[in-house]
C-alpha cells in the first residue's frame, strides 16, 4: 500500500496577523507559517496505515520558509520520501496550489501509482476551494472528505466520515482514491529532536521544479481586514467571589435560579 500525502503551510495564528500595505493580503514581514494542522493529521493517518499494512509514504509539499524542518520531521516519523515543489512564489490561492500539485503529480514519473492520496480536508486559508476534491477530479479518482478513520483492504478503503450530532457515516471507497482528512485516528505522533537531527544527516529532500500554471482565479480579494467586533460580552470584574455573586444576581434576574 503506497500513500501520497499532500501538505502545505498556513499562517500561524498564534502570532498576531496584520494586513499588508495593499490592504488585500497579510503583511508578510512578521508572518510565520506552520504546517496545516489537518495535513499533519493526513500524514499521521498515512503513517498509521503504513504501520499496519507496510508500503511507502511519500510527502509532497510546496516550498516555504522552514519547510525543510517540516520535511525532515516527517522523514524522522517514518515517511519514506519527502519531495518539495520549488520555484513557487508564496502561493496565495488554493486553486493555484491544486494546479501545482495536480501538475506535479501527473508529470513527475515516480510519484504514482499510489493507493491513496491523503491531505487535510481544509485549511484556514482555503478561500477559493479545498484541495482534495479537485485533485481527485483531475485524476478521475473517487473522493471523500471529513474523514476520521481509514481501514484498507484489497482495492477498497473503508472510511468513516463525521456528520453532525456525533453521527458518522461509513463508506467504501475504491482505491486509488483521494481522501480529505479531518483527523487521524490518533493525534500526530511525537518525534524527538534527536531523530529529526539524525534524519537531517542521513536523508535527503527531493525537489521538483514548479510547473508554470496560470494564477487566474475568478475569486478576487477586494479587501482584507481584522474582523469588526460586532458584539462584546458585558465584562464582570472583581475577585472570584465578587464575580460569582454578580453572576448569581444576573441568573436570578433572568429567572434562571
Amino acid at each position, binding site marked *: 500500500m503506497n500513500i501520497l500525502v499532500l501538505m502545505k503551510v498556513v499562517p500561524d495564528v498564534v502570532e498576531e496577523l496584520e494586513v499588508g500595505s495593499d490592504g488585500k493580503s497579510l503583511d508578510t514581514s512578521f508572518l510565520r507559517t506552520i504546517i496545516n494542522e489537518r495535513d499533519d493529521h493526513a500524514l499521521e493517518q498515512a503513517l498509521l496505515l503504513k504501520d499496519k499494512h507496510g508500503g511507502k509514504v511519500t510527502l509532497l509539499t510546496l516550498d516555504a520558509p522552514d519547510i525543510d524542518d517540516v520535511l525532515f520531521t516527517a522523514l524522522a516519523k517514518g515517511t519514506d520520501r519527502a519531495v518539495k515543489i520549488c520555484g513557487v512564489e508564496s502561493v496565495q490561492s488554493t486553486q493555484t496550489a491544486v494546479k501545482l500539485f495536480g501538475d506535479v503529480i501527473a508529470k513527475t514519473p515516480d510519484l504514482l501509482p499510489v493507493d491513496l492520496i491523503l491531505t487535510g480536508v481544509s485549511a484556514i*486559508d482555503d*478561500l477559493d476551494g479545498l484541495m482534495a476534491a479537485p485533485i481527485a477530479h483531475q485524476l478521475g479518482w473517487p473522493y471523500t472528505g471529513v474523514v476520521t478513520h481509514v481501514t484498507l483492504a484489497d482495492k477498497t478503503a473503508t472510511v468513516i466520515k463525521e456528520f453532525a450530532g456525533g453521527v458518522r457515516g461509513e463508506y*467504501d471507497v475504491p482505491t486509488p482514491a483521494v481522501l480529505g482528512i479531518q483527523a487521524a485516528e490518533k493525534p500526530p505522533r511525537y518525534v524527538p529532536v534527536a531523530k529529526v537531527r539524525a534524519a537531517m544527516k542521513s536523508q535527503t529532500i527531493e525537489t521538483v521544479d514548479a510547473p508554470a500554471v496560470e494564477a487566474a482565479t475568478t475569486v*478576487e480579494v477586494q479587501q482584507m*481586514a481584522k474582523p469588526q467586533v460586532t458584539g462584546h460580552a458585558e*465584562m464582570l470584574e472583581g475577585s472570584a467571589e465578587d464575580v460569582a455573586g454578580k453572576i448569581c444576581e444576573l441568573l436570578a434576574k433572568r429567572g434562571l435560579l
Partner: protein
Amino acid sequence: MAGNIWIVAEAWRGQVSEITFELLALGREVAGQAGVPLEAVLLGSNARELAQKLGAADTVLYADNAALADPVPENAAAALAQLIKERQPAAVLVPLTNLSVDVGVVLAAQLNVPFLNYCKNLKADGGNLTATCVLYGGKMEATVTASAKPAIIGILPGARSVEQGRSDKAAAITDVAVTLAAPKVHFKKYLDPETADVDITQKDFLVAVGRGIQTKDNLELAEDLAASLGGAVCGSRPVIDQGWLGLSRQVGKSGMLVKPKLYVMLGISGAPEHVEGMKSSQCIIAVNTDAAAPIFNVAHYGVVGDALEVAPALTEKIKARKG
C-alpha cells in the same frame, strides 16, 4: 443579474437541517438585491414533505431519486451539475457543514469553478456577488468578488438566523428529474454515537469545559457547578479528543447543536467550530484567562479570570441561594 440564486437544502434522516433555513434567509436577501428569484434545491428520495418546509424560497426544485436517499456527495453533485446545466443559476449557496461541504467541493471541481469558502455574508451589487469570508481561524475577514458562473459558495453556519428563513407559505415545488450513474463511493451505514447517559440537547443548563480546565480532575468543579444548576457538563473538541468526556457531550460542528437557557463556558477560547454548536444559547457566560479570547465576542457576559476559581465560587453562591 443573469440567473437565479440557489440554495442547496440539507436534509438527512428525514429532517431538514437548520442551516438550510439560514441559507434561505441569506439567499432571500441576495436574490432581493439581485432582483432574481430564490430557488431551493432539495435532493432526496420520498422527501416531498421536507420540500414543503422550504416555503421561503420562490421555488423548490425537488429531485426525487432513490440514489439520493443516502448522503453520497458524488450523487448530489452530479444531480446539481445536471440541474445547473439546464437552469443556469447565478450562484449556488452550499451549507458549510460536514455533510454538505463535500457536495459543494465535488460540484465545483466538476464545473471547474472555484468553491468560495468560509462565507459569512453575501451581497449582490449590480451584476456582482460580493462575499465576506472568514480566514485564518477568524483572525481576518476578506471581502471578495466571485465572478465564476455559477459561483459556488460555501456558507458558514450562523450567517442568518433560522427563524428568518422559515416560512408558513406553501412551497412552490417543481419536480425535476436527474439521471445518476452508479457512484464510485458506496455509502454503507450511519454510525450513531453510543447511547448517551445524558442528552445535552435537552438540558436547560449546560456547563461547557475547554482545554483551559487543564486536567481531567478539574472536571469535578464543572460537574459540581452543573449539579448546582440542575444541568449537565459538555465540552469542546479538545476535551473530547483528550478522552475527558464522551462523544455524546461534544458541542460544536461535529458534535451537538445545543440551545440551553444558560451556557456557562469554562476555559473555552471560542473556536468557530465550537461556537457553531452553542451560539443560539439564550444566555452565555464565558470565563477565560485570556482577555483577548474570541469567545468574549460571542458571550453575553464575560469574566477574565481563572475558571478553576470562579466555578467553585459560583457553585457555592448558587447552592446558598437555592438553599
